[in-house]
């Protein structure tokens, strides 16, 4: 059935009865939630959200899979992914050092769009499913090649317990502890 336009009329209410009734409605619903708030607030450091595997969080680099094609850094919309040239020892020819280029990431700019992960032809990049790391210095946010290969530690893990959120028909989002 195709969409259609429907003209609606606003029910303009007036009169003392309606006024009193809607006041009572508003107060009653306030009291209802005052008594039973049905809340699902995340008590953050004590609890943290365990995101699904597909969540686009910080990015980790697997050097072994990289073929130095630079597709990730070409597609990066904010020029956060840069290539560095590295001279390293080729395992097949230990005597002949080879030139390769690897990506490094600048979290000052990264927008976590996931283009680099999606464009990588060998799956050398992957997301870790969290996003809550903060820095006190700008310089720390430019990952070196070594830092880029290490999965970052989520600070909340040592402080709290994981929870997941589920949709409930009556209460909206409800949080459920894992384990």
């Amino acid at each position: 059935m195709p969409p259609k336009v429907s003209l609606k009329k606003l029910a303009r209410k007036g009169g003392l009865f309606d006024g009193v009734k809607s006041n009572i409605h508003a107060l009653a619903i306030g009291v209802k939630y005052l008594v039973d708030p049905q809340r699902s607030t995340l008590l953050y450091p004590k609890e943290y959200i365990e995101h699904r595997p597909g969540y686009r969080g910080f990015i980790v680099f697997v050097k072994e899979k990289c073929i130095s094609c630079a597709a990730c850094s070409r597609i990066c919309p904010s020029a956060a992914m840069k290539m560095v040239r590295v001279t390293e020892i080729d395992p097949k020819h230990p005597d002949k050092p080879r030139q390769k280029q690897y990506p490094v990431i600048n979290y000052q700019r990264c927008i976590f769009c996931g283009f680099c992960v999606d464009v990588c032809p060998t799956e050398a990049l992957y997301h870790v499913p969290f996003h809550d790391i903060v820095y006190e210095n700008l310089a720390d946010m430019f990952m070196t090649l070594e830092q880029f290969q290490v999965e970052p530690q989520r600070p909340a893990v040592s402080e709290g317990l994981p929870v997941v959120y589920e949709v409930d028909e009556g209460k909206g989002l409800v949080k459920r502890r894992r384990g």
Partner: protein
Amino acid sequence: MTSGGLEAGAQRIPGVTVKKIEKEVYEIFIGPQHPGSGHMRIIVRLDGDIIVEADPDIGYVHRTMEKLSEVREWLKPIPLLERMTIIDACNVTLPYVNALEKLMDKTPSTRASYLRVLLCEINRVASHLYGMGIFGVFIGHSTMYMWAFGDREVFVELAEVLTGARLTHTYPIPGGVRRDMPQDLPEMARRTVRYMRGRLEEYRKIFVDNPVIVKRLAGVGVISKSRAIELGVVGPNLRASGVKYDVRIAEPYEVYGELDFEIPVFEEGDALARTWVRVEEIKQSLNIIEQAVNWLETHKGEPVIAKEDFDKLPKLHKEVYEKEGRVKLVPAHATMKIPAGKAVARGEMGRGEIFYYVESDGGTTPYRVRVVTPSARNAIVFKHIVPGHTLMDLPAIYGSIDYFPPESDR
């Protein structure tokens, strides 16, 4: 307030020209640091408590997207333009992608179209809830803000499950979308829809029918039908004034022509009618979400990008798609060229119609991207509708228009 010894015309703070104020007109600056301004400034001149002149001074969030689109490759403007309205991310990028598809003569697969529509409607509900929340806090109703934002989180969660990001989904790409739907999404979406329908009734009780709110909104900021047309107002604000216009029926894009929903139109044109349009639109969007997930559940098998693109994908890419439902891009996406031409595409965002003009000269970057967002077209309302109201009506009008400065400033 006198200017304390500054000569007329002196400029100590840029943009603020100190000048002698004419008799009995009181000039106040609402914004940019003001609880009731958002990211903009409204220069208001008051005569007593009546606003005689309002001059919106926008551009505080002008991030030069039109220029930057011209220097970046075709795919990169998608995340870039998304930042105009991150609360409505799919709706804002979809017409750009549509314009690219028009230029490339590419048709997305039907499954991708349904996924786009699904995300668009999730975004639309989230965007309306955002607008109603901000509106609530503007007229002093903090509970509405909290409830709307709390329930918006349900839709944000839904979008996060679908795309992997809370707000900036970067979901549609030319030819399709970036991910397929997870298995448990339809059930989750249906639960969300049922929950939200119940909540709308409670919203009505505490906010939309609340006598204080009704008194505050009824008859405020009336935009008559003819005035709305002259000013080129868009979206719910237009439909609250009795104009039966919605891009989804005027020029159906994606699969909107096949879905069953209504476009609610009210005739009063005041702030209350605009609020009601949003509430009714949320109901219709919930219907669409339901239809979309039902379709997606029953029609499996088709890839979420155009068939010809999918066949060309390497083996690893197909494996990843089978396993995770994630469409991997090919390096050609970074350097693709698009045939020369001019294309126009439009779509209906939560706040109204968005318009894209994309011109290609056959190169790797767009030649010109012109985007006119709903908020940019609604900004005119401040200048022409606000004068004549009292100062306390300004937040009510601002909130009811659902003006979002980053979207307007681009």
